[in-house]
């Protein structure tokens, strides 16, 4: 091993690892399946339908399922939590029933939206909602309680001058986070996994690289598909891999 690494420093131009990478042939059908998987799991019904036709692949899920999932995602992203919950119950009533934290998170987001709406005006709808829907649960769980208290604090401060930890509550990222969680929860029920296979592959690659480096395996100093902030010019490195 030591010998190998010393030889690698001697020939930095063409690393043995890169050569081996180049030798690996990824069958096109696998790549296509990965793409379809990504489109399906992330909720792009039209693209998935077209792609599966083009690549001559069997659709992973029927279009209506993907559409329903996408609609929920969109509802959450636009702040219409009530219809998101309704649609979610329509798809599978057990999702919220069996996942109280997720339910709580959605309801809290709904509370945030209510507070946002009443900004400066009548706070009664928000109060009533918090009292009836969130407070009963908060009493049984310290984390719920903390989250609720934090959210209620939004009522007392002007939204343009919030402390950072409160600011993140009204940031669109919260909607995005919740939407992702909901999408994952639905996927877990429908396909027994949370996310697109490509995401798992990326994670596995990161893990593999980290453990290889930890064991001081012979690797190039930098690997494409930037996983480090300083390599940001590489972040699009996976683009050509897919299109080839």
């Amino acid at each position, binding site marked *: 091993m030591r010998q190998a690494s010393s030889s690698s420093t001697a020939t930095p131009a063409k690393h043995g690892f890169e050569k081996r990478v180049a030798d690996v042939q990824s069958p096109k059908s696998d790549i296509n399946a990965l793409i379809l998987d990504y489109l399906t799991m992330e909720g792009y019904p039209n693209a998935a339908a077209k792609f599966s036709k083009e690549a001559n692949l069997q659709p992973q899920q*029927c279009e*209506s*399922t993907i559409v329903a999932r996408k609609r929920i995602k969109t509802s959450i992203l636009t702040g219409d939590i009530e219809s998101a*919950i*309704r649609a979610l*119950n*329509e798809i599978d*009533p*057990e999702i*919220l*029933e*069996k996942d*109280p*934290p997720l*339910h709580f998170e959605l309801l809290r987001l709904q509370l945030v939206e209510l507070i946002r709406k009443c900004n400066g005006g009548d706070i009664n709808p928000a109060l009533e909602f918090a*009292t*009836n*829907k969130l*407070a*009963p*649960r*908060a*009493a*049984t*769980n*310290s*984390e719920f309680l903390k989250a609720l208290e934090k959210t209620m604090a939004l009522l007392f401060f002007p939204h343009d001058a919030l402390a950072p930890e409160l600011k993140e509550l009204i940031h669109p990222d919260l909607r995005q986070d919740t939407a992702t969680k909901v999408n994952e929860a639905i996927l877990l029920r*429908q*396909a*027994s996994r949370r996310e697109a296979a490509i995401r798992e592959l990326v994670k596995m690659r990161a893990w593999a690289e980290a453990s290889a480096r930890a064991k001081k395996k012979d690797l190039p100093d930098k690997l494409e598909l930037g996983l480090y902030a300083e390599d940001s010019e590489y972040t699009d490195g996976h683009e050509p891999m897919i299109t080839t």
Partner: protein
Amino acid sequence: MARIQSPPILSQIRVARSYTEQNAGLLALKDEIIGHVQRKECWVEKGILETLVANLHAVRSRSPPSFDGDGPASPAGSTRPLSDHELVELQSLQLINSFACGGPSFLPPLHAAGAVKAILSHISPAENPSQVVLTALRALANIADATRLAPPGSDDTTALSEALFKPHHVSSLYRILASGSTALVVQEQKCLVSRLISLLCRGVQQQNMLASHGILDALATILASFVVQRGEVVPGAEIMGEADGLINLIPEPAPLGADLSLTLEAISTIIADSPYRSCMLICSPAVVAVFPKLGFTPPAKETRVVWHALETSGLCNFRARTPGAMDYRLPLVPINQPRSISAHYTQFPPLGFSLSNDNLASLSVRSSSGKFMGWDTSRFDTTSVDAADEESESPLVPWLIHLIRSTDGLTRVNAASVLASLFKAGFTFPEREVAISHLVVPLLCQMLKDHDKEIPPSARNSVLLDHDTVLDWAILERTPTVLARLVADSDLLSQAAYECGAMKTVHKLLKDSYEPMPNHLEPRQWSPSPERTRGGEEGLPTCRMGPPGRIPLYAHRIKMRESSLKLAAGLISLKEEYRKNIAEQETVPYIMESLSAHPRKPRSAKEKARADKSAEDADGPNENSPYGVNPSSVILAACHVVRVLGRSVSNLRTTLEDHGVATPIFHLLRHPEAEIQVAACAAACNLVLTCSPMRERLLELGILCVLCEHARSQNPGMRLNAMWALKALVEGADHDLKKQALEELSPGWLIQLIITDTEDDALHSRMSLGADDETDQDMDTDALDDDDSYESHLANLDHIRAKSVRLQRAEVQITKLRETELNPVRKARNDDMAIQEQGLNFIRNLISSPSVPGEMVDYVFGALGQDRLFEILASKLHSKATRPYGRRNNLSDSRIVFPHAQVIEAVIYVLVNMAASIPKHRQLVIAQTKLLKLLSSHIDSNTTTVRLALCHLINNLGESEGDNDGVMSGQRAMELRKLGILAQLEELERRDASIDVRERAKSAVWKLKASAS
């Protein structure tokens, strides 16, 4: 809140003019209650449950006849839109399910409304769309889950399982499991069915029913589909399958959504510890198809060389069998400790080959060429299948071991559980015991350590658990039980577990399970309207909420008590050393508390002695004691541990005595549940021995009366254990106690116990009652009349079976085991024999009294009648025809009853003790010519102990001490010579296989000759 709960929804649902209107109402209600416990409570109190159940029934009666909901034609369950009335059904079920998710307090109103029956009417896939079936199954599973957390008293799933496992519903379950669809909905249905089986199937009757209704075969097929999916079908299966048609039974790979762990758990629940059902699994067509018994030569030369090297050096040993492909997936386990190998190894020749004729050919190839690759023309040796007789092992066994090694979590535990069944039932090669001790037991022990984590603070007071905790707990709850089944009665495996620290683990798990819990009840949610109180007495039962349930941690703790006690009992079942060790670990206080339904703080012996002086029962039973309430399962497990602990004399004298085990066991003898009484009786057997200091205390408490009472029980198990304990009690007792025992039991009843075949008679009268009508044929065969799916499945199989020798052979084996295991006549007879044996032993112990010989013999003669006693003894020695008239054909085998060896032995020992008494009694025995003649016919018995006992008897008869006994002993010797017994003895002296018998016979012959001269 009142604003939202507007009555319009309710009336919209109740008096809707159209399905559409009703559906709109149900939809609104769904959004209203899902995930909101408080609002569910409000709606229950408004009487919604009755309406929902009525919906299910009403729709049922209006619904058009069936269509196939889950055929391959309609995958994913969503292609065909539901009709409006089906939507009403679906939504009503979803709502009921939502209430069931609310927890145990919703169970009483759900049951009162008859929800279970309504749900069950929707699980048939032939009559309902797949979504509806799915929701119905979910609701059942949630009700079963909630029941587990219900307060003591209502946490019993018996009612639910009895409702579900009716022939009609079981055939629905079969259809679901056997469906060929790969749709996710169907896979989830299959998972739920497996879960329901694991949660609810209890008792031999239900297990047999599920096995005979094809459920086991269907599950085995799913298991086989995982073998295919993992690419682990035995090489050559296709070739074999093409030859006999089994190739069509090799299933498709397991589809997405199928669950291996749940499948294994359901299989293990059904087969439990029954050889018959284990055999059904092994011989299930799909399993036979993917696991043919084929020899295999691995392509890698290195592998062969290693195996060969180990084999020739004697470190591993495959004796008569050719290793199959699956064997090569396991590491070789050297057998290097022949001393630790348990007894049944001895029937195999020590190391080296001993081949049956069938295999001689392959041996000659191997030995003549001097190479291991005798058959490399084809990798698999199809000829060896002919040699694959009943004794050979299915590749399922090595596959399971491989699976255990290559998976983790619950899959591993459940695979080990199935393996334990096969191992216990004797379907594994003997050398697998070593493999299991090296490859499986350490893994299981390690799992117990790895998953035993700090309880997360959130779990201490909440019904909410994170996924990891749920998994850890499930593994902790199941693993000890599996391990206990593996190690019980195996020296090698219990040693392996012990060396892996299982004893320490038991102590820790048991100790943790008694950590005080200030709160077991599920926390109440805060309510904005404080005046609302829960579950008042007013209102209809369907509208009244039940008491709150327990938190999951509580159920986990109780389950841990049960499973760690089981592991404790398994570990110490054989070795005295481990029994001592468990006492040293200070585990005993926890075992003692487990004997009580209302445990208190576990205390060491010293603390206990101090505390007992102050106040015995200061605090009465308390539902909310921090130690919870022990259900019967825990008490039973604890009784079993006490019984095994009591096998050690030193434990009897120290640990058990110090912890005062006598009192709780005595109280359990009077427990309302028969099962616990039986277990307590078994535990008492050891406690009443003369070497036990607890004997006096138990006698003071009045154990004699209780045991005599139990000896009259209807329950054969109870009679047996009670007689066993009585026998132990009178052994070496003083004469007063012996007389008292006989009086208390009453001589008449004792004779009754010994002479009548109570169980056999009872069975006969039960059967002849039902003999006239045809229904008594066989419960399960005619119950399936309405179900064509299983029938057609069977017919299909028959077709293949006609072609396949493998399946025919399997069928023969199953039938044989079925006969041994399920024949009620056989069971009744065995029960009778066991009780009679103990009755005779009781007499033996009564009359044996080395200190004052003779007195007790006379007393027993007086009580039972001298001639009567000899008559009874004689009657036990000859085979007899039972009920020669009016026999039913299918019971023909019960016509002639041969006496069991144990009973013969017991009879002989009664006589041995008589003959050991004063000369007068010796004379009495020798005068029983008829009896002696009968005995002489047993002198060539197959059972060594019988021959030994006979030699013992003759030794005693040849005894010549006492006044003018010399003359009489000469007469006795003459008599024995006349009966031909002397000649028979000389034969034994010369020929017998057992050295004990030869020695004993030698001394008897010498005595007889000496007296005669």
